[in-house]
């Protein structure tokens, strides 16, 4: 499986300019076009290069620890009323699916002869993953992080620094992921000759959405085969959380041609999509242009980006990858909001039933699954099988969760 994670599969592709229907494309300063073209060329060539594919496959296997397990969560299943299979991306090196993407892009960085990577991060998971790959590949690494996020994810800031990265707190705008992305773009415009912008999700200008999807789509390739091996059939549904959407695309992609498999992306509903405090770009936003692509965006009547909110720093982003926007428009995937409280209830349920502390991001997928299971069971007239992408582990979120549940000692 992961030995050739870049093998072609059927399914939606962007056109040559990176459009998924009306979404995607390139809305960037001209200064970046040459770098995007270079990246596009390097990526396309690499995809057909056996040595690249072998090296990527070997890194995924020997370094990242994939294929990740597909684990049948029996006690969680009993509570939910569905046969729940967890795709354990939380067991990967660095604790999330994101390691797949950074290893792919780090390989490309070296191939392009660049010596420096920059990244933006919200929860810090992508920053840690980038710092990890940079250390492994001996690349200079600068990570932009909203000042608010450096405070709520202090542990991951320390991790990045241990790995040799420079973490730059961003103090502009809402001081969260969106502003970190703006700063990274500015850095890239100024230093594009020697720098690769290692975008952490399937968003941004072409070729990032398609390229990141291809680097993470091993999640779905693995899960599909593992589900067949375990149950003898494809699942009834596949679920994942959606911020920028890389883990969701990663697991969806292999199932897109399987029309009987329902795909569900759960967005961060915060206090509720009818309030002003959420990060649900598809279910609570509208089509617009943000960070280099046309997609669904949280925006006001004048097209100014609205501040997003989620208890999960990793989902706290007012845009979404353009392929999700397209999957939504075509109806192939369903997108639904999950509130902070629903996510935290599911977080606790998984902790107590399975002894697994999930990332709060992934808890949105778990909460969506809890809500989905009875509806699907009623519709199918039997217990459904649902594959949930457990995209990351919750160590980084212990402080947030401890705070939420009121179980932190004052001194801690």
């Amino acid at each position, binding site marked *: 499986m992961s030995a050739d994670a870049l093998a072609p599969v059927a399914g939606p592709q962007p056109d040559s*300019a990176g459009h998924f229907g009306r979404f995607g494309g390139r*809305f960037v300063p001209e200064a970046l*076009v040459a770098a995007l073209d270079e990246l596009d060329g390097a990526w396309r060539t690499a995809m057909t290069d056996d040595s690249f594919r072998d090296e990527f496959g070997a890194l995924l296997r020997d370094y990242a620890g994939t294929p990740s397990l597909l684990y049948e969560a029996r006690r969680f299943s009993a509570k939910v009323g569905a046969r729940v299979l967890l795709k354990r991306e939380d067991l990967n090196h660095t604790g999330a699916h994101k390691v797949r993407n950074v290893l792919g892009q780090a390989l490309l960085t070296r191939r392009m002869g660049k010596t420096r990577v920059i990244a933006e991060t919200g929860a810090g998971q992508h920053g840690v993953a980038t710092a990890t790959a940079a250390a492994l590949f001996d690349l200079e690494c600068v990570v932009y992080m909203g000042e608010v996020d450096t405070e709520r994810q202090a542990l991951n800031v320390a991790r990045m620094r241990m790995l040799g990265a420079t973490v730059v707190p961003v103090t502009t705008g809402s001081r969260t992921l969106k502003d970190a992305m703006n700063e990274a773009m500015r850095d890239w*415009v100024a230093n*594009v000759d020697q720098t690769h912008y290692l975008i952490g999700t399937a968003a941004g200008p072409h070729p990032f959405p398609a390229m990141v999807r291809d680097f993470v789509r091993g999640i779905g390739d693995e899960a599909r085969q593992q589900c067949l091996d375990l149950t003898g059939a494809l699942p009834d549904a596949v679920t994942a959380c959606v911020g920028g959407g890389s883990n969701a695309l990663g697991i969806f992609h292999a199932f897109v041609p399987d029309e009987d498999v329902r795909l569900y992306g759960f967005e961060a509903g915060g206090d509720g999509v009818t309030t002003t405090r959420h990060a649900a770009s598809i279910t609570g936003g509208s089509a617009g242009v*943000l960070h280099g692509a046309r997609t669904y965006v949280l925006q006001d009547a*004048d*097209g100014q*980006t609205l501040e997003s909110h989620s208890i999960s720093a990793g989902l706290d982003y007012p845009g979404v990858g353009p392929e999700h926007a397209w999957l939504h428009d075509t109806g192939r995937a369903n997108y639904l909001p999950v509130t902070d409280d629903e996510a935290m209830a599911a977080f606790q349920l998984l902790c107590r039933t399975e002894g697994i502390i999930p990332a709060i991001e992934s808890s949105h997928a778990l909460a969506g699954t809890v809500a989905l299971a009875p509806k699907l069971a009623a519709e199918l007239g039997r217990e459904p099988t649902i594959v949930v992408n457990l995209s990351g582990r919750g160590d980084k979120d212990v402080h947030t969760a401890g705070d939420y549940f009121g179980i932190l000692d004052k001194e801690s």
Partner: protein
Amino acid sequence: MSRIGVAFDKARADGRALLVGCMPAGFPTVEGSIAAMTAMVEAGVDVIEVEIPYSDPVMDGPVIQKASDIALAGGVRTADTLRIVEAVAATGAPVVTMTYWNPIERYGVDVFARDLAAAGGTGLITPDLIPDEADEWLAASEAHGLDRTFLVSPSSTDARLAMTVQHCRGFVYATAVMGVTGARARTSDAAPTLVSRVREVTDLPVGVGLGVGTGAQAGTVAGYADGVIVGSALVRCVLDASSEAEGMAALRTLSAELAEGVRNPVR
């Protein structure tokens, strides 16, 4: 010919470069920005570039971003920016707008073009809209007789340079450095080369922006370009002032210094 084109031709005939001064609309207030832009014209700025503030201005440095944030926090709307265009156009100076793409798309591309033309604007500079994605804007600007200024960069390939200027009307915006807006200590080495590359593929005038902040720098750029575009240094006059009167005085002084610079090209 476009009104900007006429202004460039006239400056060329006078043996000097055109001075373009940029200020975010609604900064520090709607009325304050009209007063500031009017003062710039009175002090010798030839063309006013009205930047429509946007929440995520990735081509702008900290000075313009801060000014834009102040404008947005003050509640400025796209409709207000068109009122500002109208007021400044009444001074007789050509007014060009600049903004990131999402506010235009949200307003409605054709409706915006119609309203901008009606307000007396000459055209639009699009820092994050390249011709590759601009079909709707090409049609709207055509329908309403507006100029289109796309950016070229030191990193643009020859093929992209030719393609981009082919879609420009009015003038071409050459970004002097790889980077974002903001005055710099030295003028760019890359800019003269970029301007001469543009001249090989078009007769359109070339304006150079990014990094110019003093009269001497304006004179240097005027030595090889048709237009000198100054933003952050002018914005800083207002941003750093302790009172409105002090800001306006600083703005007039710098505008006059820059106007003197473009009249004394260093060749």
